């Protein structure tokens, strides 16, 4: 029988806001044994991360914690600062979501690992250095002798996450708390990091408390699952129980909302293959370069790119971060200059077009941005944001404009009273709807959607995708849907284009790409997507490992 590492009972966290305690975690119970993985899943605001930080009293001063948290039979809540310091890092280590902010940018990763080691052990500098090197080797950082002297910004996202894992593992902790460890990473890197964590867990016999919203990651890793909603644990069981026989309606809803690769029926192309209509967007041999700035040399983001989008179809553009997808999207509506090649929107050339022509072409286009927090002006009520394109195109103003804004709000299923609200009062999903309403204000022929769902929770994402499909069927606009998530593209797209390092590697019918990919990269991309089903995921994982060998 393995040793019990963590025992949480009757755990409560409240936050003080304006004279009232708001509960963030309510009556949580959890036990975790060495060598096991328990996942806490839930949507944002459900109290997952609060739990993780609350375990070791890392919460802000306006939080109140009660109940009991025992790590190796030692009470952690209200423990002395000295005890806590002894346990933090040594017995309980953390892996955070964003390694760029979790690592100190002014110290080398080696220094940061050595610091952890020398804090907890009586160790000389040479000895600590050797141990740090050993740790970096363990997490498969390329060229550890050199990497140990590198600063966080010199490493890639995946390498940074590895460095942070090395730091977390420095003292062989009994419990590893991983708070969304792979959310900021690409799927292929995510798969590698998860493999690494699984391997290390078996090797070191640590327990892992995994916090994530990604059901695929959970299926890949977890032995036990705890589902949280609004601070309450709604369901707790083994992975098989939760995935195959969910009891609570919320768990069922959550699982239902997760998009699965290849689960939707094929959407028929809105035109005949033989008689293609005039394309709405036509990119021919497009090369886009970010010009030289100071000592930073010019960078070619997109090279010889060809793509056509026909009226009424959705084309999914997928690729990992840095592959140039967003650049293509922005250039398509003239937000970025093109170095060579041609971009035509409804037959009009926009590469090198002047401001006047551009603004007249832009009336036929709309764009939904990735980050709903930054894409709306925080000082404008959303009604004004939505109405701005109409107002500036001088189509309507005053009372007539108000009516059109109400119409648009109805279309995206937001209450009309929201017209007078400010962006900060809306949730992420609602803001993204406002983004759509604004993009559709001029009933465009072409809509560019740049990762519109990457900042949203799964259930919100599902609702958002439904809405987008519905609107597209009604209004028949052509859409370039940019995403890193194959499963999302799978639901929406008629056709899919895959990008890697600025090049178009494969393009074709949805089924052709997803079921019979010809390109190696596409194949790797598809196999790296975790599937929210533990049994199937195990098979896929083994298949992927075989592919790698």
């Amino acid at each position: 029988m393995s040793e019990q590492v963590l025992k949480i009972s009757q755990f409560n966290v409240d936050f003080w806001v304006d004279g009232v305690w708001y509960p963030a975690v309510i009556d949580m119970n959890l036990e975790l044994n060495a060598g096991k993985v328990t996942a806490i899943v839930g949507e944002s605001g459900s109290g997952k991360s609060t739990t993780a930080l609350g375990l070791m009293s890392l919460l802000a001063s306006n939080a109140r914690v009660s109940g009991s948290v025992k790590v190796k039979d030692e009470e952690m809540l209200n423990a002395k600062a000295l005890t806590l310091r002894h346990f933090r890092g040594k017995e309980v280590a953390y892996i955070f979501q964003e390694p760029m902010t979790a690592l100190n940018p002014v110290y080398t990763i080696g220094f940061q690992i050595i610091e952890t080691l020398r804090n907890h052990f009586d160790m000389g500098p040479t000895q600590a250095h050797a141990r740090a090197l050993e740790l970096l080797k363990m997490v498969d950082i390329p060229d550890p002798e050199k990497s140990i002297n590198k600063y966080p910004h010199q490493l890639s996202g995946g390498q940074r996450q590895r460095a942070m894992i090395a730091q977390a593992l420095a003292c062989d902790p009994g419990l590893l708390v991983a708070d969304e460890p792979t959310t900021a990473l690409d799927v292929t890197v995510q798969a590698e990091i998860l493999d690494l964590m699984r391997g290390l867990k078996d090797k070191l016999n640590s327990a892992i408390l995994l916090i994530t919203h990604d059901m695929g990651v959970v299926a890949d890793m977890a032995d036990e699952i705890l589902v949280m909603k609004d601070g309450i644990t709604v369901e707790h069981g083994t992975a098989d129980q939760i995935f195959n026989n969910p009891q609570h309606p919320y768990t069922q809803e959550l699982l239902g909302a997760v998009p699965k690769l290849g689960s939707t029926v094929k959407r028929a192309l809105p035109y005949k293959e033989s008689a293609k209509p005039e394309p709405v967007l036509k990119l021919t041999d497009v090369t886009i370069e970010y010009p030289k700035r100071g000592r930073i040399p010019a960078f070619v983001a997109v090279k010889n790119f060809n793509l056509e989008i026909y009226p009424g179809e959705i084309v999914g553009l997928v690729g990992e971060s840095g592959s140039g997808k967003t650049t293509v999207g922005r250039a398509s509506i003239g937000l970025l200059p093109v170095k060579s090649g041609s971009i035509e929107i409804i037959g009009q050339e926009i590469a090198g077009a002047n401001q006047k022509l551009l603004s007249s072409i832009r009336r036929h286009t709309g764009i939904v941005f990735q980050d709903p927090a930054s894409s709306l002006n925080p000082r404008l009520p959303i009604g004004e944001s939505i109405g701005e394109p109409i107002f500036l195109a001088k189509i309507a103003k005053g009372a007539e404009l108000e009516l059109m804004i109400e119409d648009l709000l109805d279309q995206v299923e937001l209450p009309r009273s929201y017209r007078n609200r400010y962006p900060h009062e809306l949730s992420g999903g609602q803001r993204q709807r406002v983004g759509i309403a604004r993009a559709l204000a001029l009933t465009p022929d072409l809509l560019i959607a740049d990762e519109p769902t990457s900042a949203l929770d799964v259930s919100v994402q599902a609702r958002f995708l439904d809405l987008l499909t519905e609107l597209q069927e009604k209004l028949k606009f052509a859409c370039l849907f940019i995403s890193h998530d194959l499963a999302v593209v799978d639901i929406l797209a008629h056709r899919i284009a895959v990008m890697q390092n600025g090049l178009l590697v494969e393009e074709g019918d949805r089924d052709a790409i997803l079921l019979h990919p010809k390109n190696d990269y596409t194949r790797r991309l598809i196999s790296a997507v975790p599937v929210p089903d533990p049994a199937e995921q195990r098979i896929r994982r083994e298949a992927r490992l075989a592919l790698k060998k």
Partner: protein
Amino acid sequence: MFKKKVNSTSAPQDGGENAIFNKETQGLSQGQIVLRRFVRHRGAMTSLFVILGMMLFVFTALDQKFGSLKIPGWWHYTTEDLPDLRSIGCKEGLVGCPTLSIKPTFLGGTGVHLGEHPFGQDDIGRDYFALVMRGAQRSMMVMFVIGAIGGAIGTVVGAISGFSRGWIDAILMRLTDFIITIPVIIIGSVVGYHFGNLGVGFLAIYLGLFSWTGLSRLVRGEFLTLREREFVDAARVAGASNRRIIFKHILPNAVGVIIVSVTLLMSGAILLETALSYLGFGVVAPDVSLGLLISNYQDSFTTRPWLFWYPGLFIITIALSINFIGDGLRDAFDPRQRRRITKKDRQSAKAVTRTGVQK
């Protein structure tokens, strides 16, 4: 058009990342949130009342002339009156001592009263209260003019160079650097030496022309970050012109930085004017300013210290209040600033939870 709403409309349902923290800001516009935070800042609110009260007090004390219109003040002396130097009640050998008394009779004093010359009299018998009032008026005027001119130039220069980048930015910022390298006090002395007789208005204007540099840097930085935000792209796609993007979309988002640094600029301005007048290059006689009063009577510090105290007291009060207000504004505009909770808050809040917020 779009006006503030009532709080009663239903709250956004599906909670965002900070659902709990958003409870504090639900149903409020940005302006309302800032105002709320500002009102909560005790130091800033007290300072605001002090400065407003002081302005009312100072500007109504003496006669004001606007062209042919003359508004009589409530104080019975002007700066030109020359009453006899008073020696009754003063210590031996002193004349023109203050008659102000704030020690009540039951504590052994002479009771609370202003007397004939509450702040005393100067060398030739002019009423020092009237002089200090005039000086404070001048100093406050200089402060507001410098704030307005420096604020306007700084905002425009910073906005243009931050928004357009490239060579326009380079030229404007090198110009800013150039002006920063010349100490304002030297510019002030040189210009004041040649044109000092043109009056306090002129002084304020040319000091304003040299005090916008810090602000323009800040505004430029703010514009550089804001112009990369996606809502600027969104506005551009919607067909907004550069002018509209600057004034409608970016500037309102930078207003926090501008207000805060203009306030701090103003508190610096009052000290600058004082320093220049003290050196003899600012406000010149027969006009009066607080700095000039101190400079004139610095020799009397040991014998007749009140000639030093009262102008000094006013300078400190004004500069401190403005600084506090600036501090309060900075806290109010900073979204990361959260209210610290005290032990008392913790205890009083518990009761609320028990009575039914928790399910």
